């Protein structure tokens, strides 16, 4: 007899009910199945009304983050078998308004991405034409920011962040890590420009290096480390501006 496991899913269907509710489904328990395979089984065979996002199912597109038994995870990279005996609770990522079922609204994050200017900024006179070749960057210089460039925008760190929950203006772990990714790129000259945005963010100073964000990160980006490094740079810049007030921003 095939074994099964229960997925207990937090549903929300604004056209039908104003409040979320729980619904349970029995899905086959297969050794190689992830939580996402269980959801797909439900969608295909049991209930076509269940809504959730997924795409690459190889842990790189960042679509399928959800709360599973209370922890933010990528559902395409979390085995059913690891969460026995069940029922396994599946909920939308914490901290985001829910559109429908397991689909959260990411508009706030997308707006924050824009704010930190996540692109290479160079002084106009130092721009090169592509025909002039690459900006040299040694493997060591690449290593400086590489880790922060690995973020897949899966939002697990926001779901884990105690400050984002309380302080919605907080830019949040992924956006700050991305700002640092560019600040620390040897090709970039935009750190001061980015600082204008980042320094207005009270949330950064509230971040206490508890590091929940880094713990849940599936790509080992270490946003908590990025935030701490940013604080250090910001303090240094502030100190320099006191000592050298004439220094050009």
């Amino acid at each position, binding site marked *: 007899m095939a074994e099964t496991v229960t997925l207990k899913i937090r549903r929300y269907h604004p056209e039908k009910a104003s409040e979320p509710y729980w619904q349970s489904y029995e899905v086959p328990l297969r050794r190689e199945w992830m939580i996402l395979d269980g959801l797909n089984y439900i969608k295909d065979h049991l209930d076509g009304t269940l809504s959730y996002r997924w795409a690459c199912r190889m842990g*790189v*597109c960042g679509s399928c983050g959800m709360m599973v038994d209370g922890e933010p995870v990528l559902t395409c990279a979390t085995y059913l078998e690891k969460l026995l005996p069940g029922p396994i609770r599946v909920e939308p990522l914490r901290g985001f308004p829910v559109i429908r079922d397991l689909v959260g609204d990411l508009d706030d994050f997308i707006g924050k991405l824009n704010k930190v200017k996540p*692109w290479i900024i160079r002084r106009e006179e130092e721009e090169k034409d592509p025909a002039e070749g690459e900006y040299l960057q040694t493997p060591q210089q690449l290593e400086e920011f590489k880790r922060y460039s690995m973020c897949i925008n899966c939002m697990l760190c926001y779901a884990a962040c105690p400050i984002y929950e309380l302080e919605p203006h907080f830019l949040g772990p992924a956006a700050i890590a991305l700002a640092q990714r560019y600040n620390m790129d040897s090709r970039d000259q935009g750190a001061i420009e980015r600082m204008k945005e980042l320094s207005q963010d009270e949330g950064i100073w509230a971040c206490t290096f508890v590091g929940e964000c880094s713990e849940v990160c599936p790509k080992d980006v270490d946003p908590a480390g990025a935030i701490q490094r940013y604080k250090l740079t910001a303090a240094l810049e502030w100190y320099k501006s006191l000592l050298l007030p004439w220094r050009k921003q």
Partner: protein
Amino acid sequence: MGVVCRLKGFISVETSSHDVLLIGGGGAGLRAAIAVAEVDPSLSVAVVSKVYPMRSHTVSAEGGAAAVVKESDSLEAHAYDTISGSDWLADQDAVEVFVEEATREMMQLEHWGCPWSREPNGRIAVRPFGGMKIERTWYASDKTGFHMLHSLFQTSLKYRAVTRYDEWFVSALLVDEGRCQGVVAIELATGRVHAILAKAVVLCTGGCGKLFAFTTNANIKTGDGMALAYRVGVPLKDMEFVQYHPTGLPFTGILITEATRSEGGWLLNKDGYRYLQDYDLGTPEPTPVKRSMELGPRDRLSQAFMAELEKGRTIETAHGQVVHLDIRHLGAKVIDSKLPFVRELCLKYENLDPVKELIPVRPVAHYQMGGVHTDLVGKTDLAGLYAAGEVACVSINGANRLGSNSLTELLVFGRRAGQAAAEYAAQQSAPSGAVLAQAADEEHRLEVLLRGDGGGERISVIREEMQLAMEAGAGIYRDEKGLQETAEKIEELKERARKITLDDHSLTFNTELTAGLELTNMLDLAEAMIHSALERRESRGAHQRTDHPERDDEHFLAHSLAYRVEDRSPRIDYHPVVITRWPPGERVYGR
């Protein structure tokens, strides 16, 4: 256009308007958007995508992107590798343009922050890929597509002229007076149907790997753009050519990059024997030799697997027959620095460590060489409609794409299409109101699918039957009988797909509705693919007919063009291949 029937009247057509509209926010779409913004910042440009741009399938590409950069390399060598790899079906004028512009585009991406792997002196590092004379594959460790996509996405944010419609699903093109004038799209969050008018539309929706059960492709790769074009009479070119990548993980189909082999990995059969030496691909050497053995082209390697399978020399697993990819001898240091994602994927999805264990692999549907027929700037046969990337067929890929050309293709032809569309749009008057009546018709079609009783057919059942039929009839080896059976099956499924009944009749983020539309798209493409394959009575590149095992240049050195015919099989025409400097010859590897 008469009265619009509203079943419940929830949906209403709303209208917005842009100069250039890009459908799809992956590598090609974002590169095109930036091109439009740079050509003329006064143009209004918008990107419509059914997912947030950084979820696009470009993100999954691993190994690298080709462009000549080494002193010892040349544009001729890149062109020759591409053309011989294509089994002489690529258009050589397109290939020449491609190799010429590739390096500048890749360098541009470097300037936009892409974290390319480097030499100790700070220069771009390159590695060889299959079918390549000289190494020219740029890489960002083994997450090249991921880094390219995020660099493009983040860079696109600085262009204020670019509007985005994230998580909007395009269900139809609007065509009037022989000109494409916009699209109908569903805003997923609300279910509202919109007409987005535009002077020029560029399709950048990628490939259609989900036609097959076992594929490297993401769930979103349902060939939407190809189907949109096909339905308004634009021909699909070379659809019979589907690339099987030789090394996918069993069960998941997750790709294990060719870079494993360029770094020195071996393919072994059940006896631990490097079997490729038996298939005219060279002799085994301890270190990689270019255009030889494991660095042969993908079509030949996938075919060699099938031969090993026939001989009973593959390994049986719970998820089918496999061979082994051995990278143990590279050691943890090389694997962690050059192939960290491979290790991560094996650990997470196969529960094995490639530093110490063999990786089970088998060929997996990976890439569609064919697509919307375009010219060298992405222009289709319909005025105002352009296409770039995997959705398009320019063609530089012919019968078999050279590994690491597809990422570069996104940049070169994304830019070209964006620029051409911008120039065209600048000359055009605003779209006519006539298309709004068509938008109302489309809204009606959507209402019927959403609210209708259908006939009780289920999306997942039809999809699975389609995928199995495609694998059975249109896999690595094909013949008349198998193709004919699949053609009949697809016809039956198309009929049944008219009777789909949804469980979900609501408007808010209805992913069952979009799955239904995607299925309809895929069935149209399956039809085009099967009939193109039936008509091509030869073997070339990735299209291998056991009943016609030889290449036949006399009759088939030509691109197939599939035209949709209402309620009948598609009409297949042929279009000449452009030959400039490389007359068709034998494909020689390993000797």
